[in-house]
């Protein structure tokens, strides 16, 4: 019931051996564009971080096909429980780069009100992209809960839970898969096996023969896919999503890919990742690979690719400049949303903080008002 050889669709020359992805031309190009957006967003954030204009970012280079391919299998009514390395899932579904940049700067327009670190996005529209939590694995049983609730409520929603190879060692992974197996929940578990959990290589993370097989003990089929092959990731995710929607239960997908950057902007992977691994995976870059497919299918030429890349890069650079202009959130945002209603003791602490800021001449408009 578990596959072991990674499924591939796109060959080295861009050919697909007669496979029909059953996606309209516009959809294929949308996937391509989303991958370009991820890479541009990534590169710009890296520069912003190096220049001290944002505090932190998470490199996504190399993982784009996994993110976008998986996201493309979902409807807008489905839910995503993302990891922090899933920029492409949001961008594919149409979250504006500007919205994401507001979070990177933690400014007043950030949907999470500047409370979270950069890359800890949360969106409700155009798809439920659930608020990212730093503690690894906590979201996995929550995704199962959403899926189970959907069934109880008679909805045909499917939930995608995304996590890394390291995430499979968390308590949440095991309880989440166990519950989903017992309940046959409409959930798809996507394990992005990028070979490393910060500096911990796969062989020190697990003695198991890969990650897909871990589903088996929970009664969940496992599928291994080449995570740098967008069409292959889409294919297996779509099959898992359709099966879940039809009441067939959960699937565990292991996408084999590689993190071309550091774990985060605070990490230097050269301290622990052997140089050969970067060389090996550089040749398997998911973007040129999909480009070759599009070219072979007559959907893209070099000029169009360059133009599209320039367009998305400009869009994201503009978003970064715009987000940087927005000021920090109001002081009030420290104290609101702790509860639905503001308790007296927190209100008092807030009022003292406003007074203090006013006395110091640091108060800004909006600081001193609580929402009622």
């Amino acid at each position, binding site marked *: 019931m578990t596959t072991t050889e990674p499924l591939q669709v796109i060959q080295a020359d861009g050919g697909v051996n007669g496979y029909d992805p059953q996606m309209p031309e516009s959809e294929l190009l949308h996937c391509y564009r989303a991958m370009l957006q991820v890479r541009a967003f990534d590169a710009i954030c890296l520069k912003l971080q190096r220049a001290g204009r944002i505090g932190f970012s998470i490199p996504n280079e190399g993982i784009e096909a996994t993110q976008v391919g998986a996201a493309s299998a979902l409807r807008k009514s489905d839910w995503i429980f993302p990891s922090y390395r899933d920029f492409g899932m949001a961008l594919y579904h149409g979250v504006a780069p500007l919205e994401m940049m507001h979070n990177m700067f933690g400014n007043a327009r950030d949907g999470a009100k*500047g409370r*979270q670190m950069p890359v800890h996005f949360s969106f409700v529209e155009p798809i439920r992209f659930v608020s990212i939590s730093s503690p*690894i694995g906590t979201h996995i049983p929550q995704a199962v809960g959403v899926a189970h609730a959907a069934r109880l409520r008679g909805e045909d929603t499917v939930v995608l839970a995304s996590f890394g190879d390291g995430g499979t060692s968390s308590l949440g992974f095991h309880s989440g898969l166990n519950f989903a197996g017992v309940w046959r929940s409409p959930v798809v578990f996507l394990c992005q096996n990028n070979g490393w959990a*910060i500096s911990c290589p796969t062989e020190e993370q697990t003695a198991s023969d890969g990650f897909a097989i871990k589903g088996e003990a929970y009664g969940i089929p496992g599928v291994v896919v080449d995570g740098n092959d967008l069409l292959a990731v889409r294919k297996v995710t779509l099959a898992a999503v359709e099966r879940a929607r039809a009441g067939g239960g959960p699937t565990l997908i292991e996408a084999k890919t590689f993190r071309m950057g550091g774990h985060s902007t605070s990490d230097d992977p050269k301290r622990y990742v052997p140089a050969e691994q970067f060389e090996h995976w550089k040749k398997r870059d998911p973007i040129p690979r999909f480009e070759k497919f599009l070219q072979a299918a007559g959907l893209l030429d070099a000029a169009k690719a360059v133009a599209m890349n320039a367009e998305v890069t400009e869009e994201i650079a503009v978003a970064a400049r715009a987000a940087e202009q927005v000021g920090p959130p109001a002081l009030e945002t*420290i104290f609101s949303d*702790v509860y639905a209603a503001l308790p007296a003791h927190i209100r008092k602490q807030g009022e003292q903080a406003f007074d203090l800021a006013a006395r110091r001449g640091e108060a800004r408009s909006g600081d001193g008002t609580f929402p009622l």
Partner: protein
Amino acid sequence: MATLTLLQAINDGLRTAMRDDPSVLVFGEDVGKKGGVFLATENLQKEFGAKRCFDTPLSEDGIVGAAIGMAMNGLKPVAEIQFQDFIFPAFDQIVSEAAKLRYRSGGQYTAPLVIRTPYGGGIRGGLYHSQSGEAYFCHTPGLKVVVPSTPHDAKGLLLASIADPDPVLFLEPKALYRSVKGEVPEGSYRVELSTLREARAGKDVTVFCYGAMVPVSLKAAEESLASGIDVRVVDLRTLLPLDEEGVLEHARSTGRVVVVHEAPRFCGFGAEISALIAEHAIEYMEAPVVRVTGFDTPFPNTLEHHYLPDHRRVLDAIERVAHF
């Protein structure tokens, strides 16, 4: 004596313990080759090999559970939890197991392990890379909770914790990792647990604090001089078991007390100090005990400088109790 940062002092303390005692092991996420995300365990794997300094799978529950077992079986595990914010999968192992093993077995089994973990704000880490969770753990009989604030104490308290027969949670103020430097003796020495340190002498007001709030309180004390207030600063160093008599002596001698911590106020450690004084030294007090703390909210990101007590907030409190 070498001048080291707090981080280097911890690294030196670990190295010293590993050199002195072959049963000391260091493990956790990314502590081996990478040397820890803050580099507290840098070069330990190089010097002592991967049998004594190694990475584990990504499971805090596994790390602490395994450390308990190793400690039961004669080793001296020093486990690292990458951020205190990620310790909660191990809460069960710490609270239900490590802290209760001696008691529930009538002293037949014990778990003398050390869990090191960086805590606190100041690095723009938002909700999950900034928390100060000491109060959860100080509510746990059987556990010891230690918080250094100087390089000298960091090494000496760490060595004392490793030598201690009971489980110790060693909270490292990450904001001070590289920002404080001080003289650190070479080789082995211990700073006795459950002892206070008078970080600054003064006769008018006592400020009790620990970890990253010690330099903040010292700065406030310096600035109080301008308004003629002579402030004593006491670094608590060990929160559990607390040197209660020491706290009471300082409280009685100045009659005016401020407590500073970055953790939320409600049921925070300041409440314990305040209650202790109310019960046993009220007749000496000239003013109510005032707490300067983080807010009773999660830890924000962009506005963390408003959340974290700074010397000006401490100064306000000092003036309030001085002029009460």
